[in-house]
Every structure is written in C-alpha cells, then in structure tokens.
C-alpha cells in the first residue's frame, strides 16, 4: 500500500514539475494543467483506436504533438500576461482558465460522458522485486516519472538552456538584460511542459480511466504538489509528489477512502495559510 502510493506519486511528479516550472519561469498558473493530461490521454486513445499497437509506442509522438501545440498557444498566453493589464498573474490565470473550459467543453462535445480506457502490454501484469509483487504498469509509470524527472534535472542543471531557464525563473529582468530572450524561453518552457504533461496523460490513461472531466482531478493534484513544494521550486516537487502519494494511501487505508480528498484539501489549504511559499519556503 505504501509502495502503491509512492508509485502513483512518481507519475504525478511529472505533472508537478512542468506546472511548477511554468509558474517559476513565466509566473503563469496554468489552470488547464489537468486538461493537458486529459487531452494527452485521449490522444493516446485515438491513436490506439485508429492505428492499433501499444499506446507506449506513441509516447514520443504525443510528446512532439503537444510540444507543438504548446508552442503555438504560448504567444497568446504571453500576450495575456504582458502589456498594460493591471495584473499579469491574474490575467494569465483567467486565460488558462478559459483554455481549460475550452478543452473540457471540446472533449465533452466529442466524447461525451463516456469513460474510456486504454491498455498496454503491461496492463494486468505484475513484477516481482525482492519480496514485493507490484503491478507492472504502476511500476512502469513510476519509472517513467523518475526518468522524466532525471532528464529534466539534467536539462535544467547541466545544459546551457537549462541554466538560462533557471536564471529567467529567478530574476527575469536581469536575465533579459543579459541577453536571454525571455519570450522565447517562456515559449520553450511552456512547450516542454505541454509535451511532458501530455505524455504523462497517456500513461495515466492506461492506469486510470479516461473521461472528459478527469482534468479536475489532476489539476487538484498538480496544485497540491506545487503548493507543498513551493511554486517554482522544482526539486521540492519530487518530495511533494511522493508525499502526496503516501498521504493518499495512508488516509485511504487508515481513515477511510471517503476522506482522502478532504484530507488533501485540508493539507493544501493549511499549507497555503501557514507557509504559502511551500513547506521548505523556497517558493516564489
């Protein structure tokens, strides 16, 4: 059960990192984060439905597709948060809110309220590691999460681009002065975020059911993780996501499944009130 929580947490990390980076670099709270997951899941579903094969194969393609979509949408978001609007963060928030409604409405129109799911070669299988027997798929999801996290970390801390991104996140104006094209950086980050989140959507689709309103759940999780970790503080996301998984499992088993969400919200709300910058106070 504990392991279960950790495994799920691993996958959520991916969503959390992208979302956190989004806020850190561009000060945009993407209300549509859950919708990216949902769209990713549905895209995976469509591909499996029309082209067959295992959804895992489509992961890279979906990554590229979503990167592209993110790249195209970003100029609009940029426009929403800049200019003489009186409150850029709020305008960005409302804009992404609009996007989420758009996405959800679109999904509902096309697929209605039916619940779908997709299966991969790992579904239903189990892996034995030492004394534990765990569902192979969840393990795969976890591995995926860890892999993406590692890649992200390498990217952020070891490559030139990564350093530029982190610099922009910490001090936008100075980075600007030093030659970083803040707008392009933002676009890059947003596309990566969209791509990664879309990809994770596919995996989530194999693990859980796919339906048009699933976005809300992942939005909740992303918010939770990022609030706990501190907005914009990426390393914290790992701990927070794992913590989330653990919390869910813990509450589910010891207090009762009905209370998991309440516990979740209470913790999130509490953290926001006491240490809005995250438990480690490293947020923005």
């Amino acid at each position, binding site marked *: 059960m504990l392991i279960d929580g950790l495994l799920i947490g691993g996958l959520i990390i991916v969503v959390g990192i992208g979302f956190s980076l989004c*806020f850190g670099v561009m000060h945009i*709270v993407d209300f549509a984060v859950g919708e990216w997951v949902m769209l990713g899941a549905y895209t995976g579903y469509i591909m499996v439905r029309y082209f067959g094969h295992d959804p895992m194969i489509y992961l890279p393609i979906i990554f590229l597709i979503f990167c592209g979509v993110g790249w195209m949408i970003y*100029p*609009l978001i*940029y*426009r*929403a948060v800049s200019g003489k*609007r*009186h*409150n850029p*963060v*709020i*305008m960005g*928030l*409302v*804009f992404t*809110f*609009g*996007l*989420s*409604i*758009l*996405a*959800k*409405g*679109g999904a*509902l*129109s096309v697929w*209605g309220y039916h619940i779908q799911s997709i299966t991969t070669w790992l579904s239903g299988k189990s892996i034995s590691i030492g004394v534990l027997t765990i569902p192979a798929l969840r393990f795969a999801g976890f591995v995926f999460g860890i892999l993406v996290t590692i890649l992200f970390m390498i990217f952020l801390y070891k490559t030139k681009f990564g350093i530029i991104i982190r610099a922009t996140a910490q001090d936008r104006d100075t980075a600007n002065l030093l030659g970083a094209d803040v*707008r*392009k950086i933002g*676009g890059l980050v947003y596309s990566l975020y969209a791509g990664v989140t879309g990809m994770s959507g596919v995996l989530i689709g194999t693990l859980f059911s796919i339906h048009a309103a699933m976005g*809300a759940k992942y939005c*909740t999780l992303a*918010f939770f993780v990022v*609030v706990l970790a501190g*907005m914009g503080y990426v390393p914290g996301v790992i701990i927070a996501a794992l913590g989330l998984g653990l919390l869910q499992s813990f509450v589910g088993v010891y207090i009762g499944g*009905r*209370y998991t*969400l*309440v516990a979740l*919200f*209470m913790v*999130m*709300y509490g953290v*926001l*009130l006491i240490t*809005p910058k995250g438990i480690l106070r490293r947020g923005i």
Partner: protein
Amino acid sequence: MELQASKAQAVPVPSVWRFTPLGLLLVICLILPWLASPLWIRIATEVLMWAGLAQSWNIIGGYTGYLCFGHGAFFGLGSYVTGLMMVNLGWPFGIGLLFSGILASLLAVIIGYPTLRLRGAYFAIATWAFGEMVRQIATILDVTGGAFGLQLPSFLNLRYFYYVMLAVTGLTYLTTHFLLERARFGYKLLAIREHEEAAEMVGVDTVSIKMKAFALSAFFPGVLGGIYAYWVTYIHPDSVLGAQLTDFMVVMAFLGGIGSLWGPFLGAVVVQLLQRILWLFWGEGTFYLVIIGVAICAVVLFIPNGLIGLMESRFLSPREAVSQLKKTFKW
C-alpha cells in the same frame, strides 16, 4: 469601467431619459410571469439567479481584484442550510434564507481572515481548495444526506420563485450600485485592486475593507442558494457545490465586464442564452463551453473590460486588429 472620469464630465442628461432603459427592463421583469410560458419563466428565473451570483462574485473578484475560485461554496452552504432548517427545524422560508445569507457571510469572514492575506494566484488556489473541501465535506456528512443529496418538499408555484429570485438579485444590484458605485467603499475596493500597498499608505484599512467585501459577496449567494434549493427540490454536493458553479460565476462576470455594475448581468444573459440556443439547434449541451472558453480567452486578450467595456470604448479598426495579431505571433 464604471467609475471613470465620465462621471465628472458627463453631459447633463435629463434624469428621465437616463432611467428609461432601466425602467423598461424593470417593467419587463415585473410583468414577465404573467405574459410568458412556464418554460420561459423558468429560464428567466435561472438567468436572474446567475445574474445575482455573477454580481456577487464581482464584488470580491471584479472590484476588489481577489479572484475567488471557491465562491460556489457559499451558494451550496445556503442551499443546504435553508433546506435543513426548514426540514429539520420547520423554519419559515424567509427566515431560512436570511439565516443562510448571514451564515455564508460568517463563513466568509472566518475563511477570509487568513485567506485574504494571500496574493492573487495564491488566493485563487486557496479559495479553490476551500471550495472543493466544502464539497467533499458535504459528500461525507450524513446530515447533508451525503452523496445521495437532500430531497426537499416542493412549493410548486413557479411565479413565486421567479419573484423571490428577482427580488434577491435586484437587491444584489441595488447594493452594488449604492455601496460600490456611488460610495467610498467602492473606490477603496478599486484602490485595493489597483495597488494594495499604495491604498494602505493613503489610509485605506485594507484588511477590514477586504473582509467586508468578501462577507458582502458571500451573503447573496447564500440566499440565492436557499431559493435554488427549494426551487429544484433536490440538492446534491455536485449540483450546488461543484466547481462548475464558481466557474460560471467567474465566466459571466468576466465576459460581461468585471468591476462594472451591469457587466455580470450581461454576462449571465449571454452565457445562458448561448447555452440554450446551442442546445436548441444542436440538441447537445456541451459545445457552448467551447465557445465560452474561446470567449474568455478573447476577453483577456482583447477586451479585458468585458462586453460592457467594449460598448464603452471604441472598437479596434480592422487594421489595428491585424497589427495586434501580427505582434502577438511575431517571434
């Protein structure tokens, strides 16, 4: 933006003419139930409810600049409280409604005290979490009927509900007009929205004012929730406490024009109309959400003052619009 310079330099218009459009609207609203079919009365009642809800949200979201994403909680609270008070304690309808409103305001004060300290995005997320939390709690508690909801006895009279809804929504607009548009309270809220620190420096007690605004903005949804509960006779955590309720309030206020008196009303009408027209022609109930989503995005990008703002300012000429678009996509 209602509170603009035009007040000081407005061309004096004979009062009679200025009130005519409003008067007409009022007359139509008053006599509607006697002229329209039950279907239209129902539609009008719903539009009125949303107009009231959107305006209430506008008080804290539009004028004060604190986007509350959990406002539906106050509505749901009102629904449940009124329902329970009447069913379990046998209170009369009016008292139940009043109590709901006051309770909602109280909750707003309790929640507001810690939450209003947070800045923009954090406040949005915190209130969102709060809203969801309330919904989950309602799903768990037995007294609220849990996930099965609450069944309430029916009053039946459609016209009755219409007038009650009209009265409360009207009260919402009157309050906004007198307390926000024409008074120092409104200016203070705007000052807080525009630059909270500076407002504090010129003597505005921001903490106290924000709390008052929040409490005020929670009162009407509480009452409206109570009316709604008895109007539909069956309430359920997802129907009266769902995030989609708050979403609609936000959408309507934004679309119509935040920070304005008539914006939310216009927004409510447009959204409701859109929903029903699309349903009528395509027999399908969710595509209008796509249009709404696009509309919100468009509002943020091009007309942040909403449709009301559009009517008050000049339109972009085609050439300006094209150059704006070009600028947006230029790398």
